[in-house]
């Protein structure tokens, strides 16, 4: 016995479910694709990790919430049974028989046409549920939308991993990169990489991140961080950190005293941004051995800065900040004639032409007299300190230990080091450029 009312109820329910599914699929497809595109844009945009993560979470929420909200709104909307039945008529090619029977059942169920129509509907509507099967297109849209949402989740997870690793990386890198004008940054990168790899993370990611952080620290646009306070004295930093280091080594592994911490804090406040970061990292460090290592780096860096400043005052003076004794950094686009450049372990990769750094002392070239040597910026160079060797022998030399560190940092093959070393030896007559 064909019960038209039951048929209508089932058809309306199926139509509504089908409509919701189609709406959900389409909206998930659209919102997922849009969300993924925006998420990729955010992921590679120059935003802080926390801002990126928040934005990604918002996009993920939107990608998932928009379809659900739309479906919820659609479910709240009144639906028109006649229209649903007429659509079913069309899909089953029943020539409005279901709709007509619905009209009759509501207005004149005793009509002479009721039975004829009921019979025709019963015959013609066999397998009507196939009408409401989801089409491959709908399934495809759903799958693509879901994959887009999952991709956003993956981006969020990656961002979260970055954020978790970011504090130690940032502080360490800040400490090392802040000392970047000298060689301490490059020396410490190796330690950083070791630490990160020991955290069982993907080495490639850490290397990429370390380079990113270091390059960001070396970004000329962040040169403001290297502005030298007027009351900064590199020699003072060098002498205190050296003395403190000596004291710590004599006393064995001990934490810093309050006085020592206060003094380091005072020095950091007067230091330029990069060195300040390194000093603050020492203040926050609990491991006495780590403190000693970092103080060693800071002391060495401050010593070199003091030496360079002293030499430049003696030789040129014009480019030196005499008040601080700190070697100023060239600004963006600065030419080699506008300022000297510290012997950094990392060149500015954004520069299309290498910057040249003038050697502090002139060299001799036979009878031609004095020759001012220029060294490509970014090549890790050591200058003998004043008094270590006679002035005529004070020549900059390539620091191959830092070269090795740079190459390792950039994940270059080991045999690259031999090539690089051979190159410098050839052009500098056995190590003296």
């Amino acid at each position, binding site marked *: 016995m064909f019960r038209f009312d039951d048929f209508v109820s089932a058809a309306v329910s199926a139509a509504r479910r089908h409509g919701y599914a189609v709406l959900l699929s389409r909206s998930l497809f659209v919102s997922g694709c849009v969300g993924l595109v925006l998420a990729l844009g955010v992921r590679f945009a120059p935003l802080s990790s926390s801002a990126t993560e928040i934005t990604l979470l918002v996009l993920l929420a939107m990608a998932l919430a928009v379809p659900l909200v739309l479906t919820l709104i659609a479910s709240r909307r009144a639906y028109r049974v*006649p*229209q649903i*039945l*007429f659509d079913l*008529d*069309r899909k089953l090619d029943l*020539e*409005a*028989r279901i*709709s*007509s*029977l*619905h*009209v*009759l059942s509501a*207005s*004149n169920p*005793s*009509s*002479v*046409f009721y*039975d*004829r*129509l009921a019979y*025709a509907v019963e015959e013609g509507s066999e397998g009507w549920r196939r009408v409401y099967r989801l089409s491959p297109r709908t399934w495809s849209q759903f799958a693509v939308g879901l994959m887009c949402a999952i991709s956003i989740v993956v981006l969020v997870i990656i961002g979260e991993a970055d954020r978790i690793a970011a504090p130690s990386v940032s502080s360490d890198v800040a400490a090392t990169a802040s000392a970047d004008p000298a060689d301490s940054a490059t020396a410490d990168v190796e330690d950083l990489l070791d630490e990160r790899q020991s955290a069982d993370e993907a080495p490639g990611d850490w290397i990429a991140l370390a380079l990113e952080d270091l390059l960001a620290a070396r970004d000329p646009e962040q040169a403001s961080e290297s502005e030298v306070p007027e009351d900064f004295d590199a020699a003072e930093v060098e002498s205190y950190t050296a003395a403190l280091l000596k004291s710590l080594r004599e006393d064995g592994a001990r934490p810093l005293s309050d006085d020592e911490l206060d003094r380091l804090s005072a020095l950091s406040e007067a230091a330029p941004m990069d060195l300040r970061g390194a000093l603050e990292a020492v203040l926050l460090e609990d491991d006495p051995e780590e403190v000693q290592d970092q103080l060693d780096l800071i002391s060495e860096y401050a010593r070199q800065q003091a030496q360079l400043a002293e030499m430049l005052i003696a030789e040129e003076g014009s480019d030196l900040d005499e008040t601080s004794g700190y070697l100023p950094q060239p600004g963006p686009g600065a030419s080699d004639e506008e300022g000297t450049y510290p012997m950094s372990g990392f060149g500015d990769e954004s520069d299309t032409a290498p910057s040249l750094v003038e050697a502090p002392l002139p060299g001799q070239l036979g009878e031609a007299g004095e020759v001012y040597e220029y060294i490509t910026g970014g090549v890790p160079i050591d200058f003998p300190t004043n008094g270590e060797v006679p002035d005529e022998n004070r020549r900059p030399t390539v620091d191959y230990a830092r070269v090795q560190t740079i190459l390792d940092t950039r994940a270059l093959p080991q045999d690259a080091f031999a090539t690089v070393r051979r190159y410098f030896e050839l052009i500098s007559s056995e190590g003296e450029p």
Partner: protein
Amino acid sequence: MSTQQDVQATMDMFGRLQSAIASVIVGHQSIVQLALIALLCEGNVLVEGVPGLGKTLLVRAMGSALSLKFSRIQFTPDLMPADIIGTDILTEEDGHRQFTFSPGPLFANIVLADEINRATPKTQSALLEAMQERTVTVRATTYPLDEPYIVLATQNPIEMEGTYPLPEAQVDRFMLKAVISYPTLDELTEITIRNTEGQGITLPEPVASKDDIIAARQIVREIPVAEALRSYAARLVHATRPSDPSAPGRVRDFVEYGASPRAAIALIMAAKAHALLEGQPNVRPADIEAMLVPAVVHRLLLNFRGEAEGVTVPELLDDIQKAITV
């Protein structure tokens, strides 16, 4: 309340009726069908065609097959309203003189108003009450007309000199308009055979009665129309109006006045009757589409630009049908 047997009997009856008329009229099945639809829907039909195409014979054959009273009025410019509706005449009975109503030719079941556009508007207007209300009022007395009642009016589209185009109010009262075209070569050959051999044209024997027609009208009204199709018919009619946003561009450009609500009523009713004659238990989209032109074509008034550019109303209705979907 109709029964299944009534429905079957009605369909059988209309089958016999179509066969009976077809025994006299060669071709023109669509015109016969429109006349029967109008009969089922209590409507009137305006038949347009050149002389000699069998319009009068069609109406006579219908009257004969239906066993209904048939009258024919040849409209001329000097025809007066009293000539068609009847008048009071002075009679004397038992020494008393009194006015007695003498019914005109409108008092029949099937009225053929031949060349209706040759009569003056005054006489044409005398048909209005009969066509719409199925009554005739003479002086202060209203006389009901016998059911079933149908007016089939013809007009000649080519001899326009000395004619009076039907006023819009009267045109609107025709439920359907049928255009009789020339017969095909085979039909023409058959016509010559029927008219020149044997005993010539013989009108068919009655195959249905008044009561059959009245019962069939009740059945037609019971045929259900889906809500979506009712809406479809309304939208089709609405789109004939130039001000309607859904009207096609050519309708907005070339139509002065669109169809009246009577058009929608006529369309739905005609679709119902069409479905019944097709043996269907309900109105289908095809029924509405088949009846669109006959039910609406005479209700659209083209503007000057449309007339000047030779636009035809069926073309515009075709545009509407393409623009409006179910």
